[in-house]
């Protein structure tokens, strides 16, 4: 399976995963509209992150050329954004005040970001703290997944028997929504916070195992022949051939993992509560501060975009061709 189809499959899986709390939301006897807002969190994060990869303007010698190039690069996205805000504005007009418009949201945002790091007890903290604690959960869950998933991927790629032993299990578990694992986490850890981290661990381990393993099997046989002809030791093969050859695949796995983890954390936190952007969205819904939910959607999108850009930059740094 190529990395691209794999990526698509994952996105579909993650989107499905995030859409699931809709069912829970209805069970909690909340308006069905919440299902729509939950789904839009999922769908907004992905396209924003993809568009971010557009090439930046090339340096030109003459100022005029440069200006024109800059305009060409910035104008279309700006127009797109303006159109989006326009549609949003028109939509709020026709919705008759139930949906906050751009101006209202902007004013709320200015107030909100004036003090992002206040703390009035565990249930009332600034948006900064909420984002940071979500990121922390993602970091811990993802980190543990990387520590286990990457070495496991190398082993699966290197040893065919092991791979045929483990592959059926992976194929069985990978399509399962990570949120289905949440109750298991709650049962084992008896606390909400590690349970959310556990969910992140589950959802981010698969892309790393699969991409790393695929990278190992895709190492060009030429390089392995070099290793054989030079009669390199297993350690040298790993450090000089396997690891550098697999690194790009590994980074793709990491990128997919973090992207999925960021999608899932919002949903997981809605279910577990505590401090976190997902919980914050839920809380603001209970307070009927819909403009805050819209702000949260933007914040989640922007954080996801930054994470993706950061990992793309790292991957570029380590690409050798």
């Amino acid at each position, binding site marked *: 399976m190529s990395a691209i189809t794999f990526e698509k499959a994952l996105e579909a899986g993650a989107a499905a995963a995030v859409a699931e709390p809709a069912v829970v939301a209805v069970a909690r006897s909340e308006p069905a509209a919440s299902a729509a807002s939950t789904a839009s969190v999922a769908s907004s994060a992905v396209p924003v992150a993809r568009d971010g990869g557009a090439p930046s303007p090339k340096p030109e010698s003459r100022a005029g050329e440069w200006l024109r190039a800059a305009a060409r690069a910035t104008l279309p996205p700006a127009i797109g954004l303006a159109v989006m805000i326009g549609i949003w504005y028109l939509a709020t007009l026709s919705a008759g005040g139930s949906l906050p418009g751009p101006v209202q949201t902007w004013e709320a945002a200015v107030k909100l970001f004036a003090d992002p790091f206040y703390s009035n007890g565990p249930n009332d903290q600034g948006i900064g703290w909420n984002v940071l604690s979500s990121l922390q959960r993602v970091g811990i869950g993802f980190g543990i997944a990387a520590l286990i998933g990457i070495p496991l991927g190398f082993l699966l790629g290197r040893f065919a028997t092991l791979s045929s032993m483990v592959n059926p299990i992976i194929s069985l578990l990978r399509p399962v929504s990570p949120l289905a694992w949440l109750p298991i986490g709650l049962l084992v850890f008896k606390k909400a916070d590690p349970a959310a981290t556990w969910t992140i661990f589950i959802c981010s381990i698969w892309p790393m195992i699969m991409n790393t393993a695929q990278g190992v099997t895709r190492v060009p046989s030429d390089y392995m022949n*070099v290793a*054989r002809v030079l009669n390199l030791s297993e350690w040298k093969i790993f450090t*000089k051939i396997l690891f550098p050859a697999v690194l790009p695949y590994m980074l793709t796995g990491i990128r997919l993992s973090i992207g999925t983890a960021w999608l899932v954390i919002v949903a997981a936190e809605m279910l577990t509560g505590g401090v976190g952007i997902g919980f914050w969205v839920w809380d603001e819904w209970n307070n009927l501060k819909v403009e805050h939910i819209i702000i949260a959607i933007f914040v989640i999108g922007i954080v996801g975009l930054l994470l993706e850009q950061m990992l793309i930059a790292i991957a570029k740094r380590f690409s050798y061709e």
Partner: protein
Amino acid sequence: MKKFVQVEDVGMRFDTKKGPFVALRDVDLAIEKGEFIALIGHSGCGKSTLLNLIAGLTVPTDGVLICDGREIAGPGPEREVVFQNHSLLPWLTCFENVYLAVERVFGAKEGKPKLKLRTQEALALVGLTHAEQKYPHEISGGMKQRVGIARALSMQPKVLLMDEPFGALDALTRARLQDELMKICDATGATVVMVTHDVDEAVLLSDRIVMMTNGPAATIGEILKVELPRPRNRLELAHDPRYIDYRAAVLSFLYEKQAHHEKQAA
């Protein structure tokens, strides 16, 4: 003279989805120490297969291969391969690519400064001192090929196996590298087996030209002994009647005796 590499009744059968495919049969060849052998034949006849067998990258399904009195069971440091596509590791500089090989062969006995010196010498030999710190994607195809040759030579192999090492190069670079290779072989006395498609190259470089019949089930068709004095000069040889005869002999083998199989084999 003592035979250094012996290929005895070797056959190679590949198990494919459509059933067994016999690539080579009854290949018999004895190579002397210091001899330069060119392997020539139409595409797909099994030249690379034979070279890989001598390298020990694959094991024959029939017969046996011997190097220096011992059966070839796998790749060994005394037999070094220059791959058709140079096979440099793209994440290592030219220096590091060669150093990896040097370290493997001499690392146990020699210190780092000596190993570095060996690496520099090998790169100097192919005229690439200035490109030591460059990465493979920063140098030209011919330079990559030369790094591949430097890597093989740096290990001071007793047998140098080259699979169309100059195949992808322009005529000028190719001629220069051929001259360099002849000098290196004179200096080190290495035994060389070189796969080539180029008749001129085969006659210019080799002591014997091994001509293979078309596949499937290819074998050695003829062996031509090239008795031109060394050192050889390409310009002088161009008008040498013996050179022209050798050339004609190889061409006639390829395009008369083996020509009618060509379509069948492809």
